[in-house]
């Protein structure tokens, strides 16, 4: 495999948190690549470790084990100084545009903040010009430069978040549920903006969300997580056409479809997500899985490439082949 083709390579990444009750397996043995200029969607329910994964990849949290290679450089144990330099290449868009912006800063200050931190411009005129350019890029009217976040609606606030992330010309952006707090009409505006930016600036995204229809729309590949583990990884269309893992199947059948003619058989999953603290051996999904056998409860399934590019970790799927 050619090194240059992948923007990010993650190998056997683990992140355990210490708790009084034992180790909490937030991310457990996750491996993936993101090719340059493409989008990897990470889906899963709350508590599955998708946000933690994003943070470990960016180096905001230290990995317990495994490696993160960004553009051919192993950054897993990068120094503090190198981390700060890397931040210009790797950025994050936050979920909540209501709490991630300082309420006392106006729009132009908010967008200029990363440029100040990295002392990019010496002259104020250049800085102002760059801020104005960024506002144009993300579709914020220039008259809003001195408005405060509370005067703006969710969609505009999220545009500020996008502009802040873009300020340093990053190559890779982790989008952590960037549209979950927005109304559908505004959500569509932001998704279109992210797609256009990717095309124009050649950005690579890791798109974290719990919304499967959003992830299908924006991603090239999709990674399905459950309790810190990878359940399935596949190209987006393939995953929706031929889901293999019982969890993915259940997840897909649980989405309410806004049409009255599509009738699907529902696979109702029993129970709820179990505790990730010192998890039992065996498949993490076994307690809720309708097909679980003795083997599933004892032995952790490994990720297997079932058809080209389509990986899944399930004893039952392997058995069928």
């Amino acid at each position, binding site marked *: 495999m050619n090194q240059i083709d992948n923007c990010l390579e993650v190998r056997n990444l683990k992140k355990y948190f210490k708790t009084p009750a034992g180790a909490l397996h937030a991310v457990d043995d996750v491996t993936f690549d993101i090719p340059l200029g493409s989008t990897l969607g990470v889906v899963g329910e709350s508590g599955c470790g998708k946000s933690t994964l994003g943070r470990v990849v960016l180096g905001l949290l230290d990995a317990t084990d495994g490696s993160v290679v960004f553009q051919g450089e192993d950054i897993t144990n990068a120094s503090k100084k190198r981390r700060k330099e890397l931040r210009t290449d790797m950025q994050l868009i936050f979920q909540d545009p209501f709490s991630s912006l300082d309420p006392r800063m106006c729009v132009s200050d908010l967008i200029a903040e990363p440029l100040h931190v990295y002392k990019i411009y010496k002259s104020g005129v250049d800085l102002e010009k760059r801020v104005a350019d960024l506002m144009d890029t993300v579709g914020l009217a220039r008259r809003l430069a001195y408005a405060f976040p509370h005067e703006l609606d969710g969609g505009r606030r999220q545009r500020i978040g996008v502009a802040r992330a873009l300020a340093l010309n990053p190559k890779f952006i982790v989008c952590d549920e960037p549209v979950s707090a927005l109304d559908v*009409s505004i959500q569509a505006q932001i998704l279109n903006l992210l797609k256009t930016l990717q095309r124009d600036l050649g950005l690579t995204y890791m798109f974290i969300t719990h919304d*499967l229809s959003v992830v299908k729309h924006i991603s090239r590949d999709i990674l399905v997580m459950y309790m810190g583990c990878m359940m399935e990884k596949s190209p987006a269309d393939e995953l929706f056409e031929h889901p293999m893992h019982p969890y993915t199947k259940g997840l897909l059948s649980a989405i309410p479809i806004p049409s009255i003619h599509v009738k699907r058989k529902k696979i109702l999953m029993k129970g709820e997500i179990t505790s990730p603290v010192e998890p039992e051996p065996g498949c993490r999904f076994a307690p809720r899985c309708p097909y679980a056998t003795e083997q599933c409860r004892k032995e952790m399934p490994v990720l297997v490439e079932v058809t080209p590019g389509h990986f899944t970790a399930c004893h039952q799927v392997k058995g069928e082949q």
Partner: protein
Amino acid sequence: MSELLDIRDLVVEYHTEVGTVHAVNGISIQMKTGDTLGFVGETGAGKTTTALSILRLLQIPPARFASGEIWFDGKDLLKVSEKEMRSIRGSEIAMIFQDPMTALNPVIPVGQQIAEVLIQHNEITKAQSWEMAEKMLEKVGIPAARANNYPHQFSGGMKQRVVIAMALACTPKLIIADEPTTALDVTIQAQILDMMKQLKEDSGTSILLITHDLGVVAETCDKVAIVYGGEVVEYGSLEQIFDRTTHPYTVCLFGALPSLDKKVDMLTPIEGQIYDAISPPSGCRFHPRCPHAAEECSKKVPDVVEVEPGHPVRCLYANRFYAQNAEGRR
């Protein structure tokens, strides 16, 4: 008339320092016994204000009922005494709130919270109410032994089940569910919606379901009201709204959703910002964002046009859009 709930031209305003907020501007809806009505709209459309008006839970001031009537079971709820209202809340109309994490009291066991409702409205002893509370918990799929547990010992989905048990405790005639599954994961949402449907079939209660999710509406409702800017812009049965969509706003709402079965490169968002309730636009409230807006739309307030029996639409060109869209879908 067999209408259980009949809201007529309800107008609610909030008087604030920055000006008058026109939250609800003449909403009229009717519900029959046994109906599930989906109340769909975006942030600031006036959905929650309408719901809280029915229960008279709005704080007055800043809120003010400018005009309108809310008829429930032969009574105008805006005219009854506060004492009578107290006996209606919980026993005849119950509410399921959006966020199960904040709707429960963290320092009281869940069983006691359900029993509290029962004691309030029935002449029963504490022991009887506790027994009934345990039965309610079992009905929503929680073992009776857990009645002694506190809310923090339950997961999000379980807490929402407790909230639903509380709402159902007195077998109300109407349940108002304000975004009951928005705070939950999809698999849990599917469980809760399935359970609500089952419970509705068993008890025959009517449900007013407030949501922004058209997928949830398609799975649970019989009737749909689309609200924008404090007005019902389109109302009809599930088939009428989903198959013969007429109002441009409703069409836009469907277009903005990323689809699971169709592959589109770019979504069609609704341009502009959401409705500003302090300085509402002149004429049709949707015209600044409407892709078909004409000169006339900014001047004339559109009347309600009934494009087919039981399918009123608030748009100047309703008949034209109805004809076009009905054709386009075929």
